[in-house]
């Protein structure tokens, strides 16, 4: 292996590219050639460093020097000084805004990294099928010290002090939940892990279970110790076969090591875990429905109280927490509640994992401290909107959440701010939309989902959502009236107020938030029979511009409906009564003669 080889990494993210990134690469290549350094120094474009405000970024390996705001004319100096003479170009190093010191190594640039991985700390780091790797990363130490050094109440107090709130969406304080379950007396209690992740586009919990299953097992055992339960059950959807397989491996390994089973760590505490499979119903994320499904009953919610802490699985006191909530527990206990509660905002502590999806450049699984703004998530971590389009909205909270517009981009993300903005945290799905997304269609998409997933137990949800969907469909076909818009609003509020469980109470949120934030778009559909984002097919009109059409016949041959007529070398035209708005003609036209309105 060749040593002392120098690699120059140049950020190829959209931001850096826009500020002369490519010229910088060309200049580097020229300088390398000029100085006869080919073969010893190479230049490579990388993905976005997520530090766009200080771009373009150039990183020199192997000494990890991090240059910011590099201009094409700086390249010569970097090659001559740094590469050849080994002296860093100080003026291009990042300057710490507080100490005014120049920092050369990105590792020491505290705020450069917007993401902190707590729940995901071992994902992508350890081999999830080998318990030793988890133990080497302090695995099961939290459980061991709880059992041998702390009383259950002390552990509960620590969790309460940490400020951890349920990551499944509700945001209920976890320590308090444990305390309720611990106070109820019974011969048997249960710890339940809710791994029934159901929001479309969300996969935080799956990633944790697949990447770090032991953390969930350890946390469940700790919870068992706190509330006085000896049995744990993980309710996981059968659609997650790899997560199930890795959990099984993890449970077996933990049993072999005596970390699950009887008399853990030489104490009197017994704890074991079993898996229960769900068929993948969204409503089973609601804890009472989840418990019924675990018992073999239909997955339908029941009225609370009694809360599961009082009467849950098999009628015994049970504590239900989500996967991500559990994944935070061992860290909190190892590092201390006072370490954890310094991260985040006043009322929302720690970090949150989001599945960032939609029209952003870097779709991914991210973990950011509470209080990070939507702008930082979408434009810095996400690398901005695809194809340089305009940001339109971001949907958080899945089918229970809402769409936030650009006016909320600087809102710090936490439980309370998102609710105040008309959306919610949810379990962590985050879908970014650009100018080509029609907000009526977005609302319709989520309503289709809730209609399919409603358990049908109560009328407002079963029938009301169906009616909402019908009205939305009517609007996207251009058959809606202004009266329909008011009906949508009224009906939504009735469903919210009268449904039994969280699914029904939140299902109209996508409709209400789009009505609030994109009223004009609804009106355009109704009054002008026009879809401003050009997504609703029934409202589109394809037109051939006779000035631009050269009569090549490509469109007429592509049209599956035979709607285009015209002679060769003469301008063609589209018969709108036959057109099915498929857009095939527009794709084929090489002269830009066909437009869509």
């Amino acid at each position, binding site marked *: *292996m*060749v*040593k002392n080889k120098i*690699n120059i*990494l140049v950020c190829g993210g959209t931001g850096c590219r826009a500020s002369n990134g490519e010229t910088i690469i060309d200049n580097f290549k020229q300088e390398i050639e000029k100085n006869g350094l080919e073969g010893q120094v*190479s230049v*490579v474009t*990388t*993905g*976005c*460093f*997520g530090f766009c405000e200080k771009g373009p970024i150039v*990183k020199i*390996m*192997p000494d*990890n020097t991090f240059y910011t705001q590099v201009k094409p004319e700086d390249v010569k100096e970097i090659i001559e000084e740094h590469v050849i003479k080994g002296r860093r170009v100080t003026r291009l190093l990042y300057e710490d805004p507080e100490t005014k010191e120049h920092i050369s190594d990105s590792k020491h640039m505290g705020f450069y*990294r*917007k993401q902190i*991985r707590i729940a*995901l700390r071992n*994902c*992508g*780091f*350890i*081999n*999830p099928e080998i318990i*030793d*790797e988890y*133990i*080497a990363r*302090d695995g*099961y*130490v939290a459980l*061991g*010290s709880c*059992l*041998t*050094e702390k009383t259950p109440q002390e552990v509960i107090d620590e969790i309460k002090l940490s400020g951890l709130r349920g990551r499944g969406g509700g945001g209920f304080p976890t320590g308090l939940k444990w305390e309720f379950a611990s106070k109820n007396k019974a011969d048997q209690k249960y710890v339940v892990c809710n791994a029934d992740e159901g929001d479309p586009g969300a996969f935080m919990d*799956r*990633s*944790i279970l697949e*990447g*770090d299953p032991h953390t969930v097992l350890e946390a469940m055992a700790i919870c068992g110790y706190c509330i006085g339960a000896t049995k744990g059950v993980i309710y996981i959807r059968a659609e*997650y076969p*790899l997560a199930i397989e890795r959990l099984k491996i993890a449970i077996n390994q933990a049993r*072999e*090591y*005596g*970390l699950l089973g009887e008399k853990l*760590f*030489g104490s009197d505490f017994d704890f074991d875990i079993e898996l229960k499979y769900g068929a993948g119903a969204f409503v089973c994320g609601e804890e009472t429905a989840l418990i019924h499904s675990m018992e073999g009953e239909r997955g339908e919610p029941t009225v609370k109280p009694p809360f599961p802490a009082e009467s849950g699985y098999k009628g015994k006191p049970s504590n239900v927490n989500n996967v991500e909530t559990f994944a935070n527990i061992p*860290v909190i206990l190892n*590092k201390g509640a006072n370490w954890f509660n310094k991260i985040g905002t006043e009322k929302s502590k720690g970090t949150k994992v989001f599945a960032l*999806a939609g029209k952003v*450049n870097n779709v*991914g*699984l*991210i*973990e950011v401290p509470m209080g990070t703004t939507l702008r930082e998530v979408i434009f810095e*971590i996400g690398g901005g909107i695809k194809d340089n389009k305009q940001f339109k909205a971001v949907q958080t909270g899945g089918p229970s959440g809402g769409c936030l517009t650009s006016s909320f981009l600087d809102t710090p993300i936490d439980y309370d701010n998102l609710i105040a903005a008309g959306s919610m945290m949810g379990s962590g799905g985050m879908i970014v939309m650009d100018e080509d997304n029609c907000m009526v269609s977005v609302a319709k998409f989520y309503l289709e989902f809730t209609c399919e997933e409603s358990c049908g137990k109560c009328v407002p949800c079963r029938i009301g959502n169906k009616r909402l969907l019908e009205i939305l469909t009517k609007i996207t076909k251009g058959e809606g009236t202004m009266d329909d818009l008011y009906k949508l609003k009224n009906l939504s509020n009735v469903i919210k107020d009268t449904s039994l469980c969280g699914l029904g109470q939140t299902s109209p949120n996508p409709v209400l938030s789009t009505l609030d934030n994109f009223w004009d778009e609804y009106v355009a559909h109704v009054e002008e029979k026009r879809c401003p984002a050009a997504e609703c097919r029934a409202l589109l009109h394809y037109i051939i511009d006779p000035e631009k059409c050269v009569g090549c016949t490509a469109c007429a041959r592509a049209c599956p409906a035979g709607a285009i007529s015209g002679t060769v070398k003469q301008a063609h035209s589209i018969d709108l009564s036959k057109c099915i708005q498929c857009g095939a003609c527009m794709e084929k036209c090489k002269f830009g003669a066909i437009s869509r309105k």
Partner: protein
Amino acid sequence: MGKIKSLADLKNLKTDLQSKIDLREKGDSPEKLVQIKVAMATCGIASGAKEIMDFMIDELDKQSINSVVTQTGCMGYCYAEPTIEVTLPDSEPIVFGYVDNNRATEIIEKYIKKGEIVEGVLPVNYETID
């Protein structure tokens, strides 16, 4: 491996394992051992991570390059799957995205054998707690 019966047992095991991993990292022939982690959550596997892992193992074996290839969970770079992390001796780990057989070959030929970084580097943009 016997059962862990006390916190001290666990801590001993941890120290043991850490020194083993250190040995693996710094072992007898530190100038040769290459470590590769392949992100293998469902999504990684769906985009071909398993094939890449097999390919890397075969190829490194064929060329007698002293290496450890392991699987790991999601690294979070969904847009660039399959992703792998390569750690050369005495170097910082580097994550490569969009790895197909061609790029894997390139990574072996250029980066692992010559230390020359190839296209597809994903800057690690998060901090992981210890």
